């Protein structure tokens, strides 16, 4: 069966859920092989095998992660040349897309980013123009390189061999041109990563100020959700910019999106319209966000949201 390379997204060997989604998708296309870069393979190996990786290619030399993006593209280009896979799948993060872009140039291949699905004949589905148009695309030259958005499928276990092979790459001067000299972790607490979260709770202009976001955060924590914000809220400085959902911010596609005090300008819709279920709280019944709502309440978020938070607490016991 054709080999499908899946670049693993992980933190020190703790494999991100999106990688399990990619392995699940890859099994419908061929036989998945995981490509693992950096430290922590002993932690990751069992999980990767459990979700269907027949092979695991490991590149754990320090220089693989000491430089920006390019070493991973060189590793994948080498594996593409050696293994002639039917496709390469990566996560549709900023870095995943950049690796894909460089790999496409290196291997003379077409690249598709931000796929939300892939069919068995490698036709990728994308949702574009803020979710208003669905496009089916296919790579016609070289090895299809496709980046897939988180939450595109539900991960399913299907144990495979997970045979480990160590891979070394002699990096070019170009690959070592941009050196990471420090990694700065900013406090983000225990909440899940915004783009990966199954549930996202967001606040907008209606939240009224930075203190209003405490209400949003309490609801998020009751649901185990990530917190997002509209551009109006981040522009006003009420919530940090990296949590902005929308065009020029993050694109999310969670199982559940709860929009509080957000009017639903196209700017925002572009970043959340593909969410599976959308719940809206807004005091303006004319707010365009209600057009997207599976369930909406016209009311003051400062009474509705705390009541909802309490109710969830009760029901979860």
């Amino acid at each position, binding site marked *: 069966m054709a080999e499908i390379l899946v670049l693993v997204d992980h933190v020190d060997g703790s494999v991100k859920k999106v990688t399990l989604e990619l392995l699940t998708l890859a099994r419908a296309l061929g036989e998945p092989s995981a490509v693992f870069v950096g430290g922590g393979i002993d932690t990751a190996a069992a999980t990767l095998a459990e979700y269907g990786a027949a092979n695991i290619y490991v590149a754990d030399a320090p220089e693989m992660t000491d430089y920006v993006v390019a070493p991973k593209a060189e590793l994948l280009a080498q594996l593409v040349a050696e293994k002639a896979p039917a496709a390469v799948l990566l996560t549709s993060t900023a870095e995943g897309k*950049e690796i894909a872009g460089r790999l496409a140039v290196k291997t003379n291949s*077409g690249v*598709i980013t931000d796929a939300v699905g892939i069919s068995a004949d490698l036709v990728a589905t994308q949702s574009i123009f803020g979710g*208003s148009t669905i496009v089916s695309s*296919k790579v016609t030259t070289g090895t299809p390189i496709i980046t897939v958005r988180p939450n595109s499928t539900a991960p399913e276990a299907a144990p495979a061999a997970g045979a480990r092979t160590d891979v070394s790459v002699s990096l070019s001067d170009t690959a070592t*041109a941009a050196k990471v000299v420090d990694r700065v972790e900013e406090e983000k607490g225990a909440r899940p990563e915004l783009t990966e979260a199954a549930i996202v709770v967001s606040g907008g202009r209606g939240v009224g100020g930075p203190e209003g976001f405490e209400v949003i955060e309490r609801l998020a924590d009751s649901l185990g959700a990530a917190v997002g914000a509209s551009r109006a809220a981040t522009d006003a400085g009420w919530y940090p910019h990296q949590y902005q959902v929308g065009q020029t911010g993050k694109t999310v596609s969670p199982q559940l999106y709860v929009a509080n005090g957000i009017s639903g300008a196209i700017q925002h819709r572009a970043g959340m319209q593909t969410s599976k279920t959308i719940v809206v709280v807004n005091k303006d019944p004319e707010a365009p966000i209600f*057009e997207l709502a599976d369930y909406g*309440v016209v009311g003051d978020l400062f009474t509705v949201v705390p009541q909802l938070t309490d109710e969830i607490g009760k029901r979860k016991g």
Partner: protein
Amino acid sequence: MRWRGNPPKEVDRRMKIVVCVKQVPDTWSEKKLDPATKTLDRASVDGVMNELDEYAVEEALKIAEATSGEVTVLSMGPEQSTETIRKALSMGADAGIHILDDALAGSDAVATSLAIAKVLEGRGADLIIFGSESTDARMSVVPAMVAERLGVAQLTFANNVEAPGDGSVKIHRLTDYGYDVVEASTPAVISVVEKINEPRYPSFKGIMAAKKKPVETVSVADAGIEPAAVGLGAAWSEVAEFAAAPPRAAGTVVTDEGDGGVKIADYLSEQKFI
């Protein structure tokens, strides 16, 4: 393909900066795909400078001002892209390059990066600055691809840039967990994120001055690009089909009568979220 520019000498702090900008449909306009070419119908919508590129122009101008450098604005696109080039010139860029050729229409990211890299080759830019994404295609891959093609450092998703003009560049690259501090030597490709700076508005004087600034038009042949390597026919991925997204099924909207929170909890229970 290797970079053939000269590295700046220590005595020469004047940075040569190229800032790459794209004309995109206004965010507020309705975007459509052309049924014949399955590419964005650019003729039917108002064009504006890609918002994130305004931050790129501002960053280029700031670095140039601090190093007595010069800024060239580069854009690839149809005739009307001159509006976007003029805007950058009116903000203060010194000169423009317009990659203009019917053969380029429908180019994908791979071909776009090829054209930009070919035009930049041999021009000796110390820094090539992009916005981190365009608001139409939203792929965010062209800067990385141009760095790959030119064989220079990739310093992308920067929310802080230090380029003092001594041949070193340092950025803060945004990540999921915070940021990476990344160092390189020039030449380098940079992409900047929103909020890195406050883009200036063109002044009246700037607008008048922009009219006299030189804009060089470069064709595919001028840049030594094989016409077959760019444009829709050369795209390495193709759109098989497209359709309007199915409208979301109309949901339930209720007015809060003191139990709005409980009602949402009921809905979330039904949907098995709690």
